[in-house]
């Protein structure tokens, strides 16, 4: 009876519409199963045994991606309690630690963030030392460099959100760098040359730093800006580029082999 039942399930239109290929019994079907699945098709169909040795890859790319998922899930949970306003931000952080069940959720997010930065650096170090940035993988190296920058920006924007003294002054110091942007920062090279009718167009109320922090000093406007960038803007771009990154690994011939 179970045989009949499972047969009627696997023969049904619902089942077939989801699993086009059926049970992969040979190499051709295995390849088709990979190609026909939106998640699996990002992954190479074949992986060389030598290419996935722990001593060769350190599994640091996979670890970085795993930590990205950890950050996404813990971050989503934190968003249910955290309110990005001057009145509530710090109180909600204390609440997350003292009163909310599983008070380590924020700690998981924070430690995961530190670990992700370390994992990304080690991944890049491994890729560099194995020469995996060389053609045909040079494009994917560049995607990886952008992903490194996005990882650091995620850490930077997340740093402000606890809204304690460390956060405010760290972001004050960090965002002061934007003053020195060429042409677009009010203390940057060439900014004094951008004039209209003798009036400077780039000043403390109109430069790159002003757009970044939404004012002349770190305040409520900065908090909401960094919150949106941290929770939506940068993760969206990062998720897209991670997909491109994985797909390119496959298109560039899989994980590079040992030399």
């Amino acid at each position, binding site marked *: 009876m179970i045989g009949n039942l499972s047969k009627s399930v696997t023969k049904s239109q619902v089942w077939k519409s989801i699993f086009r290929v059926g049970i992969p019994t040979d190499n051709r079907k295995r390849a088709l199963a990979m190609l026909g699945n939106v998640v699996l098709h990002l992954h190479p169909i074949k992986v060389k045994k030598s290419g996935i040795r722990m001593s060769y890859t350190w599994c640091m790319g996979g670890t970085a991606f795993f930590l990205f998922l950890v950050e996404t899930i813990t971050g989503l949970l934190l968003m249910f309690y955290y309110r990005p306003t001057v009145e509530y931000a710090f109180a909600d952080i204390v609440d997350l630690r003292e009163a909310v069940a599983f008070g380590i959720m924020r700690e998981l997010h924070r430690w995961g963030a530190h670990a992700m930065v370390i994992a990304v650096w080690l991944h890049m170090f491994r890729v560099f030392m194995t020469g995996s940035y060389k053609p045909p993988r040079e494009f994917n190296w560049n995607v990886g460099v952008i992903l490194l920058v996005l990882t650091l920006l995620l850490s930077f924007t997340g740093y402000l959100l606890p809204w304690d003294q460390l956060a405010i002054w760290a972001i004050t*110091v960090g965002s002061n760098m934007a003053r020195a942007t060429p042409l677009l920062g009010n203390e940057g090279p060439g900014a004094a040359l951008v004039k209209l009718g003798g009036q400077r167009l780039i000043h*403390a109320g109109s430069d790159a730093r002003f757009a970044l922090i939404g*004012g*002349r*000093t770190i*305040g409520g406007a900065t908090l909401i800006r960094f919150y949106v960038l941290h929770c939506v803007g940068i993760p969206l771009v990062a998720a897209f580029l991670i997909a491109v990154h994985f797909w390119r690994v496959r298109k560039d011939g899989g994980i590079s082999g040992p030399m």
Partner: protein
Amino acid sequence: MTRRGFFSWAAVAWVGFTLAIGGCVSAMTRFMFPNVLFEPPTSFKVGRPEDFPPGVVDTRFVDKFGVWIVHDQGRIYALIAICTHLGCPPAWLETQNKFKCPCHGSGYYKSGVNFEGPTPRPLERAKISISPDDGQIIVDKSQKFQWELGQWEDPNAFIAAA
């Protein structure tokens, strides 16, 4: 349609498309620059000159407006409370007679000139003047005077105390 006609229409279409996209991008960029700031005004009144006795660093306005009003050696001037190293807020230490930054330890004399820590230059001074209406001191933080540019001798950088 002639070949020439096709290309002129294509050109019009591409120019229109470029302008539309450019307009959208400009609008979105402008959107990120707020018109109203929920910040203290950059220009404000702090009281009459006789409210600031000689030799005293006035710390009443530092929390809200970020300036100290100092009366020293015959001049009243407004020091901007932003460390010239990396932008932290120094504190006035009365007992040690100096400004000290908590972030990296930069120290400044009462005049604002640096003497210790990593900071490369003195504190900046804000424009200071006396209101012709009520004789109160007006501090305008939007105009700054830097020692290393020789701007502290500018008549707008201090009030000569009576």
